[in-house]
C-alpha cells in the first residue's frame, strides 16, 4: 500500500519534471514568442505566490502589489546598466532589490495597519500609483530613473561567464535566451513554492491565517497583529522585488508603463481566480491568466479569417472582452476560485493512535 503510494507520487513528480523540462522546446516549435510567454507565465506564478502571502494567508487586500515589482525591477535596472555605469553581479543586486522592496512593504504597511478590506485596498492602490508616478518623474532635477523613456541596455542575468541572453550550445543542444530564462525561473518558482508551503504550515503562517479569520480573537490569543501584518507585507513585497529584478534582466528594458494599476489587478485576479490561500490554485490561476490572453491574441485573428474571410473585430479588443467574460463566469460558478483548498481529509490515523495511548 505504502509502496504503491510512494511509487505513484514518485512517478507523478518525475512526469511533471519531464514535462517542465520539455515544455520550452515544445513551445519553441511555435516560435520564440511562445517561450517568452511561458517565461512570463512563470514570472507571474512567482508574483502571485508572493501576493498570496499577503492576500491569501494574512487576508490583507493589496491592490498596489506591482509597486514592489517595480522597486525590484528598477533596482536591477539602475545597478546593472550603462545608465549609472554600474554592472553589479546578480548576487549583489537581487538581495538589494528584495530588501528595498521589503522596506517599501514596511513603509506601506505601517500606516495601513488599522485598515481592513476596502479601505486597505484603496490605500494600497494609491501607493502603487505613487510609485509609478515617482518613477515617471524622477528624471529631474537629478536624472535617476530616466523618466518615461525608461532604462535600456540592462545587463542580462549572468553567472560567471554564463550569460542568459543569446543562444548557447549545451551538450550539442541549442538553447535560446528565453529558454535559459525559463529554466532559471522554474528553479526560482519551485523555491518560492517550497517557501510558501513551509510558511503556510508554520507558527507564523497559522498566525497570519488567524488574523485573516478574526483579528480580535487573534489579538486576544496573544498574537501581535501589528508585527505579523508588517511581516506579511514585507515577505510578499520581497518576493515581488526579486521577481522584478529578473523581469528587468530578461527584458533588458524597463519603463514606468510596465507597472500600471492593471498589472496589480491582474496579479490579484490570478490569486482570487485560482483559489485564495491554496498554492496549487494560485499557480493555476497565474498560468491561466497569463497564457489565456496571449493565446486569444494569437488565436482570435486567424479564426476570424478562417470563418468569415475577413477581420470583423479587432483581435485586441475581443481578447479583453473574452477575458472579462471568462472572469465573470468563473466568479459566478466557482466563487471560491477554480481550485480552492479542499476541506482537509480527516487524519484519522493520527487521532486513533493518540486515543489508543
Amino acid at each position, binding site marked *: 500500500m505504502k509502496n504503491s503510494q510512494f511509487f505513484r507520487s514518485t512517478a507523478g513528480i518525475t512526469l511533471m519534471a519531464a514535462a517542465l523540462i520539455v515544455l520550452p522546446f515544445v513551445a519553441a516549435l511555435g516560435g520564440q514568442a511562445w517561450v517568452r510567454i511561458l517565461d512570463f507565465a512563470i514570472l507571474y506564478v512567482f508574483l502571485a505566490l508572493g501576493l498570496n502571502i499577503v492576500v491569501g494567508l494574512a487576508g490583507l487586500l493589496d491592490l498596489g502589489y506591482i509597486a514592489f515589482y517595480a522597486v525590484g525591477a528598477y533596482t536591477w535596472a539602475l545597478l546593472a546598466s550603462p545608465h549609472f555605469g554600474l554592472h553589479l553581479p546578480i548576487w549583489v543586486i537581487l538581495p538589494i532589490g528584495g530588501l528595498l522592496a521589503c522596506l517599501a512593504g514596511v513603509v506601506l504597511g505601517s500606516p495601513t495597519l488599522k485598515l481592513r478590506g476596502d479601505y486597505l485596498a484603496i490605500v494600497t492602490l494609491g501607493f502603487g500609483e505613487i510609485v509609478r508616478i515617482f518613477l515617471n518623474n524622477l528624471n529631474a532635477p537629478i536624472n535617476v530613473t530616466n523618466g518615461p523613456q525608461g532604462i535600456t541596455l540592462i545587463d542580462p542575468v549572468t553567472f560567471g561567464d554564463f550569460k542568459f541572453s543569446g543562444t548557447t550550445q549545451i551538450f550539442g543542444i541549442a538553447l535560446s535566451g528565453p529558454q535559459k530564462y525559463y529554466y532559471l525561473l522554474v528553479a526560482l518558482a519551485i523555491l518560492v513554492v517550497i*517557501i510558501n508551503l*513551509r*510558511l503556510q504550515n*508554520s*507558527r*507564523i*503562517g*497559522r*498566525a497570519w*491565517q*488567524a488574523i485573516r*479569520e*478574526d483579528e*480580535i*480573537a*487573534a*489579538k*486576544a*490569543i*496573544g*498574537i*501581535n*497583529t501589528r508585527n505579523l501584518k508588517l*511581516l506579511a507585507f514585507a*515577505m510578499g513585497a520581497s518576493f515581488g522585488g526579486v521577481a522584478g529584478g529578473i523581469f528587468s534582466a530578461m527584458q533588458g528594458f524597463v519603463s514606468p508603463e510596465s507597472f500600471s494599476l492593471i498589472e496589480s489587478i491582474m496579479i490579484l485576479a490570478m490569486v482570487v481566480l485560482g483559489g485564495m490561500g491554496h498554492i496549487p490554485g494560485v499557480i493555476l490561476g497565474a498560468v491561466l491568466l497569463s497564457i489565456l490572453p496571449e493565446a486569444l491574441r494569437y488565436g482570435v485573428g486567424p479564426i476570424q479569417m478562417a470563418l468569415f474571410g475577413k477581420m470583423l473585430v479587432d483581435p485586441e479588443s475581443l481578447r479583453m472582452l473574452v477575458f472579462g467574460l471568462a472572469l465573470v463566469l468563473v466568479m459566478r460558478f466557482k466563487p471560491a476560485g477554480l481550485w480552492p483548498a479542499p*476541506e*482537509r*481529509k*480527516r*487524519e484519522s490515523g*493520527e*487521532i486513533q493512535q*493518540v*486515543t489508543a495511548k
Partner: protein
Amino acid sequence: MTGTLLEAKAVAKHFGGVKALRDVSLTIRRGEIYGLIGPNGAGKTTFFNCMTGLYVPDGGGFSFDGKPLVADAPDKAAARGIARTFQNIRLFGNMTALENVMVGRHVRTRAGVLGAIFQNPATKAEEAAIRQRAIDLLHYVRIEERADDLAKNLSYGDQRRLEIARALASEPKLLCLDEPAAGMNGTETEQLRELIDGIRRDGTTILLIEHDVKLVMGLCDRVAVLDYGALVIEDVPAVVQKDQRVIEAYLGA
C-alpha cells in the same frame, strides 16, 4: 495556592455619557472559580474587555500575579497569562479545530520565518510539540474526533469547547469565560459545568461571566454582582443569593 491572582482597583470606563463601569474593585484568588453576574448591560463584558486589553480603562487599574497589568494591548495580557473566550463565539472559522488550538500556542512558542523556511531541528521539534499539545487539549475538552473539521462546521456546543481549548493552549493563569453556557440546553450545560470544574481542579483560576444563575451559584466559590456599572456585592454564593440588593437588581423591584 492561596493569595490574590487578580486585583481590580476602582476600574472606570465610560462611552460618551454612559458610565459603563463605575469604580469597580474586586479581587480574584488563586485557584477559585469567580463568578461575575448582573443584568444585561450591567458592564460585565466591558469589565472583561478592560481586563484583557481590548478597552483601555478611563480610571483605576489592574494588578495581576503580583505585578501591575498594563492592559493596553490584548496580546500583552495573553502573554501575562490571561486567556479568554467570547460571548459570541469567535473561532478561526476556515481553519481546522486542531489548527485553532495550535494558534493558541502562539504566545508560548517562538519559531520565526527563517525557522519555518529552513526547517531547522528546533523548529521541527517545536512544531511537533505544538501539534501534540493541541491534540491533547482537544482530548481534554472531548472533541478530538472533530480535529480535522473546519471550526465553522462544528456544532454550537463543540465550538464553545473548542474556544475553551484554544484559550487553554496559551497556558493561562486566569481563564475568562464570557457566558459559556449561553444557548446551551440542560445536558450541555451540565457537561460544561463538569469541564469548568475539571479545569479548576487542574490548577487554572477561572473568571466566569454568566447569565445562568443556577450554574453560577452551583459552580462558583465567590460571586460578584454588577448593576449599572457598579459593584453591588462580592461574596460566597449563599450570601449573594439572599442579598436584598441583588434580588432587586434582578427582579427590578
